[in-house]
């Protein structure tokens, strides 16, 4: 077992564990924190896969910006108490069952996809994930969506203003 593999398993386990912890934490703040752990482990994966740019962006955007925003809102609403009303257990059970079924179906679907069974994800090599390469593509092939996503931001901005501003 190489270091990469050990790291892989560790990060995977961490990601899954923290993801589950996001769900079962009673306190929303804990959930946020666990989610940040998930993001960190995913970033770890990115680094394993040599996608440094994304790893950094993930940390900055998600763990940094988005989650802080979440935390901020939670704090703002004073939701850190763990008195969230619970769904009744039947619904919960149904939810878990549905999730598990979905997982089963997806996994079995992927397993029956024969053409990728031999494929490997290349670890620790390749330079497509470097900021230089990605930047080049982003501003050549992907310049149109890049520009267009600005519209998305504008609308989000306008929207947030419209919605959140007190009248």
């Amino acid at each position, binding site marked *: 077992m190489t270091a990469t593999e050990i790291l892989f398993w560790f990060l995977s386990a961490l990601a899954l564990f923290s993801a589950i912890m996001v769900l079962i934490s009673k306190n929303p703040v804990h959930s946020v924190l666990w989610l940040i752990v998930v993001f960190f482990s995913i970033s770890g994966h990115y680094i394993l896969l040599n996608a440094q740019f994304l790893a950094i962006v993930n940390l900055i955007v998600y763990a940094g910006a988005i989650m802080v925003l979440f935390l901020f809102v939670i704090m703002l609403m004073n939701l850190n108490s763990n008195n969230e009303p619970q769904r009744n257990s039947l619904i*919960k059970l149904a939810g878990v069952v549905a999730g598990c079924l979905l997982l089963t179906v997806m996994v079995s679907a992927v397993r029956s996809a024969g053409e990728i069974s031999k494929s*490997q994800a290349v670890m620790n090599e390749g330079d497509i994930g470097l900021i230089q390469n990605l930047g080049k*593509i982003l501003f050549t092939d992907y310049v149109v969506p890049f520009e267009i996503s600005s519209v998305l931001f504008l609308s989000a901005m306008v929207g*947030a203003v419209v919605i959140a501003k007190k009248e």
Partner: protein
Amino acid sequence: MPIQYYIILAAALFCIGVVGVLIRRNAIIIFMCIELMLNSVNLLLVAFSKMQYTPANGNKSLALNIGSDAQIFVFFIMVVAAAEVSVGLAIIVMMYRNVHSTDVNFLNRLKN
């Protein structure tokens, strides 16, 4: 690493996200679970971008940059997610202002 490991990992994270959406009532947590789902997709895409065997891509011009499009896609997902978060949190705040709750079942006037 076999790509299947990544797929299964991503699927598992995705499904955990789904379960979270299903079993929690706090809108913010639900939203976080959705973010979790998006992240699992991101992970999967990055893994695919590094997949050795990409079947039947006839586009030679992209040959040098095989896989980079997936990473760009991830980038866009993050962008969109950020935008979504701002709107989503705004909506949740608006709701909280009106009813002082973030329970999704609290507002239940629209039904049947």
